[in-house]
């Protein structure tokens, strides 16, 4: 760990005694952003399968013939 | 005008017929305000400090709960469609309905407020300010709430939705209303708060009927 603030990794992690608060903030933010990206991916996948199904079977009323 | 008076008459007849329903708001107001001393404990100083705030929160909750009655019943039984299909302009009868709603559920709160205020040890002058603030505030609550009620018609989870939508819009009314009473209690004066409340009321009166008309059109489809 270089820079003018920290002399070691553990010092960096310790955050001058405020680790819980600082990492709690940045960590939860990172988690939320990652979660949002994952959710967006899942939603896109779901939308695409939905579209494929619709294209294959046509509209809802044609589902009947297909089934 | 004829249509408006017919509407008012109808709303008031219905309210008389379902008296229990009309009393819900009032009753709720009373119990919320009366439960607090039970929950918080009997310390009179603490209660006096809380008084204005508690009564105003109770009024706000009561107003919010009574919103369900504003359009929902008429929507369910088809009367709302019939109203929309009358030749009268929607803004007119919507204003009439909101007025009736306030007469039935807002005015009793104002009349009951002094009784509750006394439970919290408010003095005569403080009670007067409380009533004035409610007189200016409750019609604003009815008006603003009507937008939420109209938007959530017939939706799943209508109850919570209307609270969720309306609550942020109610906050300024609550703050100025309770602020006026607190101003009287602390001796800082309450004119500023009251005139702000009046401003909110005027703004709400000018804007909401249009917003509600738009919301009803959206909801009725």
């Amino acid at each position: 760990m270089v820079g003018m603030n920290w002399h070691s990794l553990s010092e960096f992690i310790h955050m001058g005694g405020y680790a819980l608060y600082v990492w709690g903030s940045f960590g939860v933010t990172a988690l939320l952003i990652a979660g949002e990206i994952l959710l967006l991916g899942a939603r896109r996948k779901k939308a695409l399968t939905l579209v494929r199904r619709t294209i294959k079977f046509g509209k809802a009323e044609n589902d009947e013939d297909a089934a | 005008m004829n249509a408006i008076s017919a509407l008012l008459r109808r709303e008031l007849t219905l309210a008389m017929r379902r008296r229990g329903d009309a009393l819900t708001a009032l009753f709720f107001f009373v119990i919320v305000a009366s439960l607090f001393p039970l929950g918080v404990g009997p310390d009179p100083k603490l209660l006096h400090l809380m008084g204005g705030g508690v009564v105003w929160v109770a009024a706000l909750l009561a107003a919010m709960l009574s919103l369900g009655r504003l359009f929902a019943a008429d929507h369910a039984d088809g009367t709302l469609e019939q109203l929309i299909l009358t030749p009268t302009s929607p803004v007119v009868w919507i204003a009439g309905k909101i007025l009736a709603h306030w007469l039935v559920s807002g005015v009793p709160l104002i009349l009951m407020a002094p009784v509750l205020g006394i439970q919290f040890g408010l003095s005569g002058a403080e009670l007067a300010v409380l009533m004035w603030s409610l007189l200016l505030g409750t019609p604003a609550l009815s008006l603003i709430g009507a937008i939420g009620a109209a938007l959530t018609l017939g939706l799943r989870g209508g109850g919570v939705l209307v609270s969720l939508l309306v609550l942020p819009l109610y906050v300024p009314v609550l703050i100025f209303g309770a602020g006026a009473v607190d101003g009287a209690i602390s001796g800082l004066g309450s004119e500023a708060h009251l005139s702000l409340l009046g401003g909110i009321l005027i703004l709400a009166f000018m804007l909401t009927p249009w917003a509600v008309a738009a919301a009803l059109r959206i909801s009725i489809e």
Partner: protein
Amino acid sequence: MSGFNLYKYSSPATFYVLAGRLIPWFYAAAALLGAAGLYVSFFLAPTDFQQGEAYRIIFIHVPAAWMSMFIYLAMAGWAALGLAFNTRLSFMMASALAPTGAMLTFVSLWTGALWGKPTWGAWWVWDARLTSELILFFLYLGFMALQAAIDDPRRADRAGALIALVGVVNVPIIYFSVKWWNTLHQGASVSLNTAPSMAAVMLAGMLVMALAVWMYAIAAALSRVRCIILERERNSQWVAQMLGAEPHPHPNLPLEGEGTNVEGI
């Protein structure tokens, strides 16, 4: 997010493709700016002599707070456009912005609370800013809950737009009322004392992070709007063509975007 030629791009089919091309760039910009911002926040910015390292929360807290308010404005703007010109895309953009906005509002509440504990000794106080941010969170939740409760997309669009507009009228009223409410009772409870030399680094860090969050918000909103477009338009010809399959023939009305030739996804 504004600045597109609305009339040209207000067709979902065209916009879908355009957004698809832009998204990677916005994500990349967000990542780069984010890395730079984090570098500034942790390595360039010195330790605060009063608050110690806890103040570093500012670098996520303030950008999130700024963006939470800005996104609400953008959302209301799209809603107004939608109501005025009846463009479906505007409504879709409004719906696409809301979850990201709510997420950032939550971030600012969360980081604020985590900052408040070491500095004020309380997770929460009823300060004007905090209170109005909480109410902003409720405004977002209300918008999303209303749209989620409506099955018919057309009604959902319009109802959501209406409440977003009503909300935006109220935001300044809320802000000032809460501010006044609070200051009447007690003096301002926070003021961050920083050395003037530090101010420049801090400001730079916050600005870079804010830009990063902004880019991220755009990327997320565009991804979401693409999902919404797919979900809503899955019956239309252009989606079928785009996915390279013959649509099932059915004798229904032509939907908007029919015949647009679209290459690539």
